[in-house]
């Protein structure tokens, strides 16, 4: 067995240690998480001694978390647990909360892989959210809303691109400015057009995909679970998941992706072999705006069905965090958004239990703590593209 597999087993046993104490198994003895989590830590320690530091520390962390979390959970009452842990609801809402994050962080990946830092994802999402709602209202179809939202997000990204590529602004300053602009533009137009009444009810919505056949999958309980958690899945959630695969293929398996990445790693070398660095960067940043806007459109007409001022509320920054946590890779970002989506889905569930209601707010800080730990390099180090953030001056 290779050290890598052992570490994987260690990480898994950390997760299992936590899972065993939750419904439906709901083991009530303290020994179960201690033993299983301990096994994870041991596996991690062994891996570290074999020299695979990153995987090893990951397994140790996972085992430790599973152990501590598990011990805490065994001390809570079983009735409370089943109020909080309804797996089908958790899966359903994890997917809902993941969707905008996936769009934005994949968007961010295009921009950052081409060498342009995109702090402005938040603003681009917000543009998508407002113009998606406005477009749906005006055109009367959700497709129109989606298209107009995408164009608005891409235009804002184009502003960021012009300033950070041609005018050589500091990319973080420019991204911050773009966020302010988006707040101003969407807030102003929203108040001017919709006033105090808010967006009209019955906006055309992104349709759900009917997956009724899931219920008939044997065994009965599995089918029931799949039906409950996935039957209301939005079309855009499926598109987001497809986007992860597509962007992986484009970024790592095609010549285009190689060009984008080379502009982000060594623009001078890319220029030397005839790649138009400016064109690639413009296209990538604009694409990132369009994708982030898709996330915004999902928020306004896919999930909430209205627009409110600053409705993205920091999701663009979580998406950025997911991108970093996922090491600027599509599947890495997917796992990170899964983690963040799950913690967002769990927070409202905690409110079902009065003594825990308080902690749901505290829980919202968790994704950010995880990213802070990740950028600190405790569990392996995130390495950005080499030339990210540096304007390229053609010679």
């Amino acid at each position, binding site marked *: 067995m290779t050290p890598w597999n052992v570490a994987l087993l260690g990480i898994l046993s950390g997760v299992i240690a936590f899972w065993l104490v939750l419904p439906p198994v709901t083991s009530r003895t303290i020994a179960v998480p201690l033993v299983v989590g301990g096994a994870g830590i041991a596996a991690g320690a062994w891996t570290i001694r074999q020299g695979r530091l990153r995987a090893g520390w990951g397994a140790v962390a996972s085992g430790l978390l599973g152990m501590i979390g598990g011990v805490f959970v065994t001390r809570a009452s079983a009735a409370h647990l089943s109020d909080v842990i309804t797996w089908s609801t958790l899966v359903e809402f994890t997917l809902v909360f993941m969707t905008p994050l996936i769009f934005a962080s994949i968007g961010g990946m295009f921009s950052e892989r081409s060498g342009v830092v995109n*702090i402005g994802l938040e603003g681009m999402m917000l543009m998508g959210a407002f113009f998606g709602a406005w477009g749906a209202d005006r055109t009367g179809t959700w497709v129109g809303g989606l298209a107009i939202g995408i164009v608005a997000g891409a235009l804002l990204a184009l*502003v960021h691109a012009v*300033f950070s590529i*041609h*005018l*050589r*602004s*500091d990319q*973080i*300053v*420019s991204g*911050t*400015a*773009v*966020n*302010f*602009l*988006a*707040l*101003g*533009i969407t*807030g*102003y*137009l929203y*108040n*001017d057009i919709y006033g*105090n009444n808010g967006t009209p009810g019955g906006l055309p919505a992104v349709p759900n995909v009917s997956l009724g056949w899931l219920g008939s999958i044997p065994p009965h309980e599995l089918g029931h679970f799949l039906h409950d958690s996935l039957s209301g899945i939005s079309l855009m959630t499926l598109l987001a998941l497809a986007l992860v695969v597509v962007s992986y293929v484009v970024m790592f398996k095609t010549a285009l992706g190689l060009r984008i990445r080379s502009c982000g790693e060594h623009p001078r070398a890319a220029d030397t072999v005839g790649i138009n660095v400016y064109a690639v960067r413009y296209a990538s940043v604009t694409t990132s705006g369009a994708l982030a806007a898709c996330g915004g459109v999902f928020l306004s007409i896919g999930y909430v069905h209205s627009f409110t001022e600053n409705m993205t509320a*920091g999701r663009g*920054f979580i998406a*950025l*965090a997911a991108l*970093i946590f996922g090491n600027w890779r599509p599947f890495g970002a997917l796992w990170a958004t899964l983690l963040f989506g799950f913690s967002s889905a769990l927070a409202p569930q905690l409110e079902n239990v009065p003594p825990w*209601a*308080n*902690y749901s*707010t*505290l829980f*919202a*800080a968790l994704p*950010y*703590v995880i*990213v*802070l730990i990740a*950028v*600190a*390099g405790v569990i392996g*180090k995130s390495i*950005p593209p080499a030339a990210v953030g*540096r*304007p*390229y*001056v053609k*010679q």
Partner: protein
Amino acid sequence: MTEPGPAVEAEQEPEAPLGLAARLELWQRAGGVVTPLLTTIFAFFMGGLVVLVISGKNPLNTYKEIFDGSGLNWFGSYCDFPCRSAGNLQQTLIQFTVLILTGLAVAFAFRCGLFNIGGQGQYIVGTVVAIQIGVSFPSLPAAVHILLAMAGATLAGAFWAGIAGFLKATVGAHEVISTIMLNWIALWVASYLVGFGGPMQDPHAGPVPITQEISSSAKLPIVWGSQLLQGLHIGLFVALAGLVVYWIVLNRTTLGYQVRAVGFNAEAARYGGISVARNYFLAMAISGAFAGLAGSMDILGWQYRLDLTSVQTYSQIAFIGIAVALLGRNGPVGIFFAALLFGALKTGTSTRNLDPNVFRPELANNLTQLIQGLVVLFVGADLLILYVWRVRRKLRLPQRKGSQA
């Protein structure tokens, strides 16, 4: 006119992309006071266009009303009691106080080549600590209590930013990412603390997410106006002193010299025997200290208690610090005027001060956001600045021809 030689050309068009602090140095040399002024005028012009085209209102009337709402018309006009413009000016100056300090928080880090985007988080921990100290020791003498609360908030801000500085110094974690994360951590933890059932919520407030009021010994003395009407508190002088301290630390101390050296060129500074890691940490901590102090000014000066809206919405005032520092070109004088501009803009567009018949305050709030965005966008564009610089050089060149030839 003579053709500029290759050396001049190289100076004008920096070949390698510049670092943050080197860029700021360039801006100071190249743009002077002209680019910030042009940027501001342009941003207001664009804002006026939006008012005219989208809302169909007269932009000049709107700006006049915002100006009056900011209370700046108090200067040079006789005012009867109760004086509306005096009251408005007090509000503007209260915002001015906080904006100077949050501007300094961004500017100090800039000088070390760091982008402290975490002013919001540092401000929030400052407010939380100020409340805790303000509520806790009701029997202390006023001067001691106030100083204790201010010191606590300052240290809290320094600690919060210091985390990012420490990570930058030790493992090289990018300060922008870590300060953004620290913003949200501070926001949610503070929301938990003051929220319903949270440990700092006032037990008598029922479901209202608000803390207890700080004891009267911790309230800052009011120097203009009345406490009941949110008069101007003594914090204004703290902020002005902050400007002086900022200048002295940067320009007259070894620490300031080292911070600037690291900001200008970290490699050269390291070669010269300066500890880059130590200065990254110190610059972030000092920068967070300013933001934490800003938090205590709001709490001790006029809010007196902290509620959920202040934590989640009002704390965004720290973001305006970015615009203040950039527009003020990181100098104390520039920050003074930039803070006054945004303080006036924020007060003038507030729901309380703007006449809805002239222009709806909800729109005006967003107009402020828009102007702020345009200012930050244009003030940071290297090439625009270089262009302005070149035009200036062309204008000046004929006079200096003799000395250059």
